[in-house]
């Protein structure tokens, strides 16, 4: 069976029909808060159950609990605060119990019942979630752009935010139906923000060997400068799947959500979201969601020990490399040969080759994938 949603019930906070019309009308008279693309995506993710059991942005009690214990106040694992910030001035007049309208690019997006308005401490947030207050950390830097007050409360979606990758965007209810229709009982999810090299392919196929299906689930949305652009990642995966995956074993879909680079905590969060999409297994990479050298390479594996009640099985698959003696992709655990036989895949090397339009060796990246990436003038975000 596909995974039960986190907390037991798939959240749906999308208004339909007459109720939606009425709420749209009422929203005209409510105080309005304009959201950026990232927060609008969070609203849609909440409303469609990707963040089940959240029905809105965190209230202070949950926020504190998430910071301190990596759990909601009801003890359910939840390591990353999903919060709505606002410039202090705007919220000063709102009271608990008020309804506010959330807008995005000037359009009505959602209505939200204010359950809580509270101040937060950026340094504490950074220290807890990112384990650093260094503004050189891209997640910490993002905190600096946020408003001084957080607003918690349940919301209801009125209008879908625009999605450039509409044809690849599936909601949890859709992947769940899809998995069931395909007869998949075990589904392994792969989180990515990279174009696939042979190491990624190997890890996915190793997991797929003993599961029914693979969900390749790239994040689209804000990423730090220098990361691959969303459309490059998607095109690269489409090409890889076309040439090297049985179509009936794999689903490629996008998840619009910001990267936080919070390493271990974010790895657990990534797993929870994929659980909501119906995945039973989740591949946790080396230095998953890490950046620079803020986290140890296997910290993202260790943290899962603290969550025996997660409800999705993490798969820790070692970094792979090409071994000339074995004659294929292998990892430390299965290859006895020395370094002289091993061709390690370096992300940095690959990026520089691709940036200079040089074909990487076939022991690192599929030719078809590299070609697609090199068709883009600049495959990286700025």
């Amino acid at each position, binding site marked *: 069976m596909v995974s039960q949603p986190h907390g037991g019930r798939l959240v*749906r906070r999308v208004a339909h029909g007459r109720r939606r019309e*009425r709420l749209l009308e*009422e929203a005209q008279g409510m105080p309005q808060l304009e959201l950026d693309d990232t927060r609008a995506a969070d609203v849609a993710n909440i409303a469609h159950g990707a963040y089940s059991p959240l029905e809105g942005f965190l209230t202070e009690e949950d926020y504190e609990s998430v910071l301190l214990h990596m759990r909601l106040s009801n003890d359910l694992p939840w390591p990353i605060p999903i919060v709505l910030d606002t410039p202090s001035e705007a919220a000063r007049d709102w009271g608990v119990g008020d309804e506010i309208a959330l807008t995005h690019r000037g359009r009505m997006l959602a209505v939200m019942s204010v359950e809580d308005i509270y101040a937060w401490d950026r340094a504490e947030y950074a220290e807890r979630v990112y384990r650093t207050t260094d503004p050189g950390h891209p997640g910490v830097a993002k905190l600096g752009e946020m408003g001084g007050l957080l607003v918690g409360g349940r919301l209801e979606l009125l209008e879908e935010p625009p999605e450039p990758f509409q044809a690849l965007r599936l909601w949890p*209810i859709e992947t769940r*139906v899809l998995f069931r*229709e395909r007869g998949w009982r075990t589904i392994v999810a792969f989180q990515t923000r990279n174009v696939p090299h042979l190491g990624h392919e190997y890890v996915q196929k190793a997991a797929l060997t003993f599961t029914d299906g693979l969900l390749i689930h790239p994040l689209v949305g804000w990423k730090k400068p220098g990361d691959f652009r969303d459309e490059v990642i998607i095109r690269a995966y489409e090409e890889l799947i076309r040439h090297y995956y049985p179509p009936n074993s794999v689903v490629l879909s996008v998840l619009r959500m910001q990267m936080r680079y919070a390493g271990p905590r974010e790895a657990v969060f990534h797993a929870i979201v994929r659980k909501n999409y119906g995945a039973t297994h989740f591949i946790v990479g080396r230095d998953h969601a890490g950046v620079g050298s803020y986290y140890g390479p296997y910290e993202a594996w260790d943290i899962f020990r603290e969550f025996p009640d997660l409800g999705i099985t993490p798969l820790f698959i070692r970094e792979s490399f090409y071994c000339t003696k074995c004659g294929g992709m292998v990892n430390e655990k299965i290859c006895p040969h020395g370094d002289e036989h091993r061709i390690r895949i370096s992300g940095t090397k690959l990026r520089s080759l691709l940036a200079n339009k040089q074909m990487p060796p076939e022991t690192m990246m599929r030719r078809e994938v590299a070609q697609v990436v090199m068709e883009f003038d600049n495959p990286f975000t700025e």
Partner: protein
Amino acid sequence: MSGERVQVTIRKDLVEKARKFIEEQGGFDSLEEFLDFVLETVLEEEGPGSEMSEEDEEKVKERLRALGYM
């Protein structure tokens, strides 16, 4: 949404309260409209609504087919 209506009985004190609410808060032209809204809200929000209806499921499948997933 079917426009057909049926009669039900409701506790009198609740009706009084509802009328008073409509008078004070506005937004509804009649007691019937108010009651329709309240029931729709409760049924959509709190009811077993998270269970998909067959109609919802068919819509999901249609989209999955249109996108080539099924």
